[in-house]
């Protein structure tokens, strides 16, 4: 093994060791350790929730619900999977609930109806003033609307797998573990999600 790679493995092992010690301290009721644990993961939890639900209010709810569940159930964590996987199981379950409720209500948190069709508020805020070329802005707006429609066509599970693979860069095996399914099933979800999006975005890409 190369020295750098060996160093990286040592660093990962040390971080894992340290995390195990922090989790044990949390299980003993150490409030500071709980705060350390939250801070180690909370940015990525919030990022997943924001990208998946595209609503700061919903992301905030997911954040609070997820870490409260960790707080209430950390004593049941037995180190038979990584804490990351355990936490993401909680987060993905809560997000899936939100997505399923939205499917039932047929709504998208950040999408509003305008004269030019449905528009994602989050996208329009990011782009406002940043692009002065009207043609480019129109193309971006069409693309954004179509992406929104494409994502709306996915089932909550397909959307979750796509989010975790594309935006969070997690491996499909890990995603399968988090969602309580096999790597193969996660692969099928990713494949279907990509096909659906290509079908909807067709002429724009």
């Amino acid at each position: 093994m190369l020295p750098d790679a060996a160093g990286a493995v040592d660093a990962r092992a040390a971080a894992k060791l340290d995390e195990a010690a922090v989790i044990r301290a949390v299980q003993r009721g150490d409030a500071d350790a709980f705060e350390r644990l939250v801070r180690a993961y909370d940015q990525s939890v919030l990022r997943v929730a924001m990208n998946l639900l595209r609503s700061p209010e919903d992301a905030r709810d997911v954040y609070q619900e997820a870490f409260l569940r960790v707080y209430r159930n950390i004593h049941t964590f037995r180190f038979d999977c990584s804490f990351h996987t355990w936490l993401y199981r909680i987060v993905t379950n809560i997000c899936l609930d939100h997505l399923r409720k939205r499917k039932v209500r047929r709504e998208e948190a950040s999408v509003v109806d305008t004269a030019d069709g449905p528009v994602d508020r989050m996208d329009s805020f990011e782009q406002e003033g940043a692009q002065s070329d009207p043609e480019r802005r129109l193309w971006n707006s069409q693309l954004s609307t179509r992406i929104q429609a494409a994502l709306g066509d996915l089932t909550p599970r397909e959307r979750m797998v796509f989010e975790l693979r594309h935006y969070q860069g997690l491996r499909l095996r890990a995603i399968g573990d988090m969602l309580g399914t096999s790597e193969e099933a996660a692969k099928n979800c990713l494949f279907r999600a990509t096909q659906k999006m290509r079908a909807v975005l067709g002429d724009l890409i």
Partner: protein
Amino acid sequence: MNCDAVTRALPLYYYGELAAEVEEGVEDHLQACASCQAELERQRTLAAALDSRALAPDSTLLAECRHDLARAIYREEAPDARRRAADPWGLFREAFRSLWHPGIRFVQPAGALALLAIGFFAARVIPSWRVNSNEEPISAGSIVSSIRSVQPDNTGRVQISLDETRRRVISGRLDDQNIRRLLLAAAREQDNPGVRVESVGLLKDQCTSAETRGVLLEAVLHDPNPGVRMKALEGLKSFAADPEVRRTLAQVLLKDQNAGVRIQVIDLLITRQDPATIGVLQTLIGKEDNGYVRMRCQNALREMNASVGTF
């Protein structure tokens, strides 16, 4: 592999999720097939379009989430702590129950000793729980001890020296001097942005004294958390005409890394038209990366009938 099989494999190929031998087959095919290369290019275009839509939560939202969580946990703990404080025997019952937990039966002898120790400390602590009428009862869980030394003597006894830090809960009205003093100190609490956000948020509505205004100005200039800086800016709204406040705001506008803070500062500065503000906005336009902030600056200068650039 034929074109059909490769096209089906491309999404997983793009994400590096194919088995090594299948991946090799796809790559061999791609080298010789222009149509499948074009398909791969479409996959890349799709991914790039989706990348442009990625959201990163800002630090204000993160600070608010942390703060909400701390409050929710406090609310969960508080009734339990109050119940235990009101019923000191609850401590013994809990300790006793925990000794019979299936995982720790082997520590029963040690547990018996622990019960004795709890009895000893409880006897010391319980009479002092109600310190005065304004304070919440203190639960045993809020006492943090650290052992400084352990000294056995010849008679079989042991002397243990420990430092105890006791958490106190103090409540009172915002115009109470002690409460204000604590809030001013909490606004500078370095390790806890949640406490700073809450304290500055309360102080901003009471910004009458020079001391409070000083703390808010200090927070706007130096607090590392943008959520705290935003709250402090809200508190300074009614002093937007004050020359010292305006000088500080101009400094913040040119150095603050957070676009939300810069926008709020612009809103405060343009409530009053003066040559210094025009100069600051013109300087900002020259170095501003954020398109939205630049647009706000331009609009403000136009409203003040000032030129957008410096000559």
